[in-house]
């Protein structure tokens, strides 16, 4: 039995907006799940439905063997961290953190002990007598985390908790959240639009778009084997290079090409199942040509492209330097490519590129889904 289960979860607002269009997800105890997607993809609505802050219009939520679909937040055992902290402005830090315990009738001595424990863990001991407005954004979010962690709820829900913080505090708190989660075996669902944050925190990432799940998988699965074009483009900074072209079979070999160029990229045998896709398609369309072909999108991460003595020719049109490495934009006859490189190139420089064949991904241009 999964600890948390969402079954065909849906939310349609009274104005007809379908924010969430049927989500199925199973979360095990102690797992760190990140809901990742662009703004408006339904990730926050999903999180708020799990919390009970939004009432689902369809589907079911099961938490710890209990159907909680329509229960108010107070009857679910959850901790929630809001994007904009949601600290009580008229209470001191101490009162803010103690509030959840006071509401469940914890004794003053136990409140004191719990307060000291989380205040130390989150480094807010010196702030206990201050009011939220006197604190920086980072400190406010620490207090907000402390308030969520002072109880030990079944599950922690975090809605872009680091979204408003500056880079320095973001990295620090991110590492802290993950350490706490691992050491206490906390079950957590974390919403973000920042794919880097998702990669570094998650046991599993749930990529969402348009109110639906696009892919569920470990960070490396999501990164290396994106289920569709959306995931390929959204995950990674910059995203995958995506080239439109044709997959062509000549006897035993497969190549990727474009009609308007004489460049042929050999497709490695690891995409052998492609052949069957190709033949099926061939039979369906009853093409009599001896040469089977299919429109595809070729995907290639920037780090699997490298400069070579020969290969795809191109002109450097932009070079983004980022310290340890850089991203070079190259105009080639098959389209613009972004290459990750530790070497630096001048704009206008003519180079040749080699694509690492084992890392080529192919997608169906019509459905967007990954082939084979």
């Amino acid at each position, binding site marked *: 039995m999964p600890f948390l289960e969402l079954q065909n979860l849906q939310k349609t607002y009274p104005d007809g907006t379908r924010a969430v269009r049927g989500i199925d997800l199973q979360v095990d105890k102690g797992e760190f799940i990140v809901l990742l997607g662009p703004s408006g993809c339904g990730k926050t609505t999903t999180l708020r439905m799990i919390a009970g802050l939004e009432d689902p219009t369809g589907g079911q939520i099961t938490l710890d063997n209990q159907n909680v679909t329509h229960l108010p937040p*107070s009857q679910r055992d959850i901790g929630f961290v809001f994007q904009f902290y949601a600290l009580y*402005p008229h209470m001191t830090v101490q009162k803010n953190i103690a*509030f959840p315990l006071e509401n469940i009738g914890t004794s003053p001595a136990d409140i004191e002990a719990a307060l000291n424990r989380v205040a130390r863990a989150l480094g807010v001991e010196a702030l206990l007598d201050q009011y939220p407005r006197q604190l920086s954004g980072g400190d406010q979010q620490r207090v907000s985390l402390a308030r969520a962690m002072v109880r030990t709820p079944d599950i922690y829900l975090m809605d872009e908790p680091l979204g408003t913080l500056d880079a320095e505090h973001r990295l620090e708190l991110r590492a802290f959240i993950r350490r706490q989660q691992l050491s206490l075996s906390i079950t957590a669902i974390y919403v973000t639009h920042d794919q880097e944050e998702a990669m570094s925190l998650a046991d599993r990432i749930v990529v969402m778009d348009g109110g639906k799940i696009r892919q569920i998988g470990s960070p490396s699965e999501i990164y290396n084997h994106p289920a569709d074009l959306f995931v390929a483009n959204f995950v990674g900074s910059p995203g995958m290079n995506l080239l439109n072209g044709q997959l062509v079979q000549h006897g035993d070999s497969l190549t990727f090409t474009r009609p308007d160029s004489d460049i042929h990229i050999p497709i490695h045998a690891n995409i052998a199942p492609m052949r069957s896709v190709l033949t099926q398609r061939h039979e369906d369309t009853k093409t009599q040509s001896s040469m089977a072909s299919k429109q595809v999108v070729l995907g290639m991460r920037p780090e699997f492209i490298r400069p070579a003595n020969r290969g795809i020719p191109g002109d450097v049109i932009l070079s983004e330097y980022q310290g340890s490495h850089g991203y070079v934009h190259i105009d080639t006859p098959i389209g613009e490519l972004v290459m990750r490189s530790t070497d630096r190139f001048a704009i206008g420089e003519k180079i040749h590129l080699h694509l690492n064949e084992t890392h080529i991904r192919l997608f169906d241009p019509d459905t967007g889904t990954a082939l084979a």
Partner: protein
Amino acid sequence: MRVKDGVLKYGFVGPALIFLIAFNIFPLFYNIYLSFTDAELSGGATQLIGGRNYGVIFDDTRYSTALRTTGLFVVLAVATELILGFALALALQKPFWGKPVITTILLVPMMLSPAVMGLYWNFILNGHYGVVNQALSVFGLFQPQWLTDPDLKLFSILMIDIWMWTPFMMLIALAGLNAIPNHLYEAAAIDRASRWTIFRRITLPLCSPLLFLAVLLRTTDALKQFDLVMAVTGPNDRATQTLSALLYQVMFRGYKIGLGSSYSIVILLIVIALASIFIRYIASIQAKQGRESA
């Protein structure tokens, strides 16, 4: 044509300044001067008589009665208006069908002229032909003499004031309630706060600075209560004579300008004292919550 900045500056500020001096500053100081004289509207030589007027005030039983009447009126009116207004605001907080219409209807009494309302209520509460007593007679109930019974007169004026000014409290309270961000209620729901806890520890404290402001405005206004008294019982009724009514009686019926002026100074001092206490209190609450002081 070019006008020098300096000249222009005075050109802009000048009219307002002249208005302020002519209608506020000068009358205030002239009033203070008059309060130390024996000036009468009927004429005659005006003489400085020192603080004798103030001595008269504190020996006058009409003054102590009016002070008590005004105090009772202010406390009962403002407290009832606050409680009713806040309750109405809480009821109107969440959207429901017909809310805009109901809100508008509730605001009507506030928009009418107090003097006109006083006259209307005079008819409505009239012991013989008033609508209220007519209605009571239909059910065979006791018909109180709302406007002539000495024990009821002040209560009747109080009711009219509450009817008129509860909407004002409601309006300010609604503004206060709407200013509380929804995510605080969400956080409180997550933190398992009961409805009563949410009201007591979130809604009330966050609303209170605005409520205090409304109480301040209503208190200073109620302290000056005159028009309803004038319209319902007249200014010289012992049971309903407020400080302002007494001032009117002394000054414009008794023609004693000097004595009347000293009454007005006393009223002014009471209002200023109460207002500054309230303002300090509001500022201290806001400072505690880390807000910018008003």
